[in-house]
């Protein structure tokens, strides 16, 4: 720092520029007060409040209950506690309820859309009916333990990768395509249903249980999504009813399963939101002139 004395008299001010070679009197590693002055911290951090996070977490609990209900139905069917005709009636009932919810919540009501749905469902059902005998003997040569293990694994994958904020099957007119992970999740659930169905005694059983699981896995997210979009209060009410139902069914099925589900529900809707709020204070976001600029218009390919 030998230039300090004449710095005041003749030295030009240091400028933040790259041109013109070395700035006289300053080293290239010169760092002054202007260093990092354009840095902005935590510019777009959203303050979350506990209640909102808790309400958001309800979607997850709700879907967890749906899966728990499906698993209970599978168990009862495998134990032959429900016969195939009851289940078929239940399937049809479920289909009609789902349909009406869909039609009531998506405005405007159109006959064309209804016709499209009916056509698709009938194709789908007849396809399943034809394939049922094949599924019936699909895993005959594999031992049951591996099948159960595989089913548990697939369901975990399904739950882990499921798209809780939207639905893999898009409501009509949705813009963006489903993500890869949500597709993997859907496929895992379908494979799990096929595996369960293949352990059943008759092919009518197979058809009925496949129809049931596919209905739930494909359309339940869509139905719940539509309800949520229609009214938040209805969504909460529906979720609460589902939770009560799932808990009571699992309570009758197995005590351990009940405790597990209850613990999971408490964890998801109370502990996790609290946790999220707590770790908010560690949020550290840096922005500055080095950031990649964002385009202010949509790129439509």
């Amino acid at each position, binding site marked *: 720092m030998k230039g300090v004395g004449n710095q005041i008299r003749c030295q030009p001010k240091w400028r*933040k520029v790259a041109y013109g070679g070395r700035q006289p009197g300053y080293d290239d590693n010169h760092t002054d007060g202007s260093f990092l002055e354009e840095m902005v911290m935590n510019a777009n951090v959203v303050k979350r409040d506990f209640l909102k996070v808790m309400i958001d977490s309800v979607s997850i609990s709700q879907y967890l209950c749906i899966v728990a209900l499906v698993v209970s139905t599978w168990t009862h069917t495998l134990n032959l506690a429900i016969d195939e005709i009851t289940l078929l009636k239940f399937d049809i009932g479920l289909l009609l309820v789902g349909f009406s919810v869909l039609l009531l919540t998506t405005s405007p009501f159109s006959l064309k859309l209804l016709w499209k749905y009916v056509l698709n469902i009938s194709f789908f059902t007849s396809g399943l009916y034809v394939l049922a005998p094949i599924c019936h003997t699909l895993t005959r040569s594999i031992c049951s333990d591996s099948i159960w293990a595989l089913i548990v694994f697939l369901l975990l994958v399904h739950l882990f990768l499921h798209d809780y904020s939207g639905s893999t099957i898009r409501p009509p007119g949705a813009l963006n395509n489903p993500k890869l992970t949500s597709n993997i999740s859907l496929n895992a659930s379908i494979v799990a249903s096929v595996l369960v169905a293949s352990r059943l005694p008759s092919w009518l059983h197979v058809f009925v249980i496949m129809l049931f699981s596919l209905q739930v896995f494909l359309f339940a997210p869509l139905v719940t999504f539509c309800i949520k979009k229609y009214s938040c209060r209805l969504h909460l009410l529906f979720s609460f009813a589902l939770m009560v139902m799932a808990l009571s069914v699992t309570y009758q099925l197995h005590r351990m399963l009940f405790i597990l589900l209850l613990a999971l529900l408490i964890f998801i809707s109370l502990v996790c939101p609290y946790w999220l709020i707590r770790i908010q204070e560690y949020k550290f976001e*840096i922005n500055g002139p080095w950031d*990649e*600029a964002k385009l202010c*218009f949509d790129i439509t390919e």
Partner: protein
Amino acid sequence: MDNQGRKHRILMVSDFFFPNFGGVESHIYYLSQCLLKLGHKVVVMTHAYGKRSGVRYVTGGLKVYYVPWRPFLMQNTLPTLWLTFPIIRTILIREKISVVHGHQAFSTLCHEALMHARTMGYKVVFTDHSLYGFADVGSIHMNKVLQFTLADIDQAICVSHTSKENTVLRSGISPEKVFMVPNAVDTAMFTPSPNRLSCGEIVIVVISRLVYRKGADLLVEVIPEVCRLFPKVRFIVGGDGPKRVRLEEMREKFSLQDRVEMLGAVPHAQVRSVLVSGHIFLNSSLTEAFCIAILEAASCGLLTVSTRVGGVPEVLPDDMIVLAEPDPEDMVRAVKKAIDILPGIDPQVMHLRMKKLYSWDDVAKRTEIVYDRAMQSSNTNLLDRLPRYLTCGAWAGKLFCLVMIINYLVWCLLEFLQPAEGIEEVPDIGPLLTHLDPVDDPCEAQGD
């Protein structure tokens, strides 16, 4: 400074070198050439490009080692941590290297070479050529690797002040260790056309890869609007990339086939001939640490219109560039402003100014100072250096220490298997012996 006359023996390491082409490649090439002229010994190390493997000599007796490792992604070698040690060690000993200079944060070869060089006790310098974010998975990963490399570095170089801020934030290194040495342009190669273009028709030139990061989507919005407002304007777009289709769609949609010429990829040797056919150079990048393209255009006497991103505002004086926010409206406004001030721009004057503002010799001299500083830093043994890695993070710190300890053991093993005395040293040939005294330079006036 006391060791002003001292000559260094430098190894430049990067995955990116000729025959690849870009900012980093030309930086290494020109810097090496000028350092050779200053009397230093320079050797370049990169990975093999196709059949180009082994040792090659390029212009000015610059020796290039094309190490036989295959690139696996975007011209990067596979990260192997310790597998490159034997060959790097051999090169370091053979060439009697004193300073190892790595380039570019996403070059794996550079990181590995710096790690091995540190283990063997060489002085290391690192140049960062790009900007990175902090939020996405890729950046977080990259920044951790950078932190590892810079934890125990002697000096670092960044190409602009913005890049310096970015590097300091990403790696947590002290800002006093980071030098700002910009890129430059070969003004002898980028000269304006001898006869001045007529102002009857204004030609706007765009030369960039047509990808998202270079703002090809902005061009799609800006070009039709400019064509609508100014009937005298014509565009020449050079470059190729995934977004070329969008530009061509735009051209058809607005029937601008006669006013927007698409050249496709332009080889670097022909960039000048494309540039001199225009009046205005348009750069629409969304992120840019320095942008050599702007320098090349300005050196050819073109007025530049650019987005105000990254280090671009530092690159040229305000009267040589028109800056705009990266949104179409503001860019159209900037193009309008550029067209208004265009009659007052003389390409020859612009070229002469560029000659004064940037030269690779100046860059080499400034880099030389960084090498001198690096040589002054004290020698430390492994145990003294380990705490520097430990401070990199709760888990990462321990992991980094482990990597360095294993690297040290690998070095001991290599010393046992192939002692350093057994490696033949290369005799120095060429410019090193003839230029032992400092050479006079045309850009002496720029220093102090």
